[in-house]
């Protein structure tokens, strides 16, 4: 079969695909083995971001959802509380406008907007540049609000500690099956807008079962960012992550200190 157009004819000869570069099916020339991940370049930038987060003790979260799930309201409520406890910052991705960043800034946290233009996802390179425009929330939390899209952001590691997928009860309960890759990649699922459950046909248990089917390890919290119901559990989840990162930073610094002292002791002899 022709791998360019999928046709089953003309297995060995040349043919055209309706544009100006006919190709030849006969193999010739040198074969060079590559075996490289298509997203290796993005992975390199993500590793750089992750290194920065580790060094500065930042717990970074990548929030993904479809448009209209209530991510920005959730984030505004979240940063309003947490900014009293430790540094927080937000990077927001949208195709157009700086409206989300303005809403976060109004809630009292530094925020920078990445406009992806026609792009459907954030990538690690863009996040790296956004970090240059933001006070790094040292010892705190960075929320990266991805473009509203349940497909494309699944593949692009931004250097985050965890992906958090936000689903609202005004969407279909079968979204975890329809967009399995993103639910499979997430550590936590937030089921938002639970205050609307009396008004919509949404079977919570079925939705949670679907999410666990595609990701047996996924953690799930239910909340309403509007009424504040369930927000405490989410805030505690974030606090635990931030404390775990701080604990790792302390042990890393202690190890560095110990080895520096050992070097000093040797050179002082």
């Amino acid at each position, binding site marked *: 079969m022709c*791998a*360019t157009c*999928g046709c089953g004819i003309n297995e060995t000869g040349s043919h055209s*695909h309706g*544009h100006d*570069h*006919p*190709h*030849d*099916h006969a*193999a*010739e*020339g*040198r*074969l*060079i*083995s*590559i*075996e*490289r*991940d*298509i*997203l*290796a*370049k*993005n992975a390199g930038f993500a590793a750089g971001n992750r290194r920065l987060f580790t060094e500065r003790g930042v717990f970074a979260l990548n929030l993904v959802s479809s448009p209209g799930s209530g991510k920005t309201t959730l984030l505004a409520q979240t940063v309003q509380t947490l900014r009293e406890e430790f540094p927080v910052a937000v990077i927001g991705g949208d195709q157009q406008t700086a409206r989300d960043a303005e809403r976060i800034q109004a809630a009292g946290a530094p925020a920078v907007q990445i406009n992806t233009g026609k*792009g*459907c*996802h954030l*990538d690690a390179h863009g996040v790296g540049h956004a970090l240059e425009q933001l006070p790094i929330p040292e010892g705190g939390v960075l929320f990266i609000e991805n473009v509203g899209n349940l*497909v*494309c952001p*699944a*593949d*692009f590691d931004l250097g985050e500690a965890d992906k958090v997928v936000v689903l609202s009860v005004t969407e279909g309960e079968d979204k*975890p*099956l329809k967009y*399995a*890759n*993103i639910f*499979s990649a997430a550590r936590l699922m937030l089921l938002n807008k639970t205050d609307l459950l009396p008004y919509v046909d949404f079977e919570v248990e079925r939705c949670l079962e*679907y999410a*666990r*089917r*595609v*990701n*047996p390890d996924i953690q799930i919290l239910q909340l309403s960012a509007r009424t504040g119901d369930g927000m405490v559990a989410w805030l505690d989840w974030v606090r635990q992550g931030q404390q775990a990162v701080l604990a790792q930073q302390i042990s890393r610094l202690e190890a560095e200190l110990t080895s520096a002292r050992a070097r000093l002791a040797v050179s002082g002899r």
Partner: protein
Amino acid sequence: MHEMALAESILNIVEETARNQAATRVTGLRLEIGELANVESEALQFCLDVVLRGSLADGAQVEILTIPGQGQCLECGAIVRLSTLYDPCPQCDGYPVRPAGGQEMRVKDIRVE
């Protein structure tokens, strides 16, 4: 439509390799895409067709090799074929099945002149 971003990444890898090997033209390109990977092969083919135009790999024959999906059933423990992330175990009909292969997206090799 992140297939366009994938196609651009593929072109980067292909051109970088071809230049390092002092090749003047890339005539063939083989990709390995897992059955469970988040990519639509047809859309990727279309995007590659656009992205490769005017490059060293203009007109290269693109072949996408599918790596079958595989998973381990957390119910019965069997290693099974998996063609979607939500399928039940074909042996015990149980859930969930944890993916254990078939999520790759790799440039395998290129043919150059």
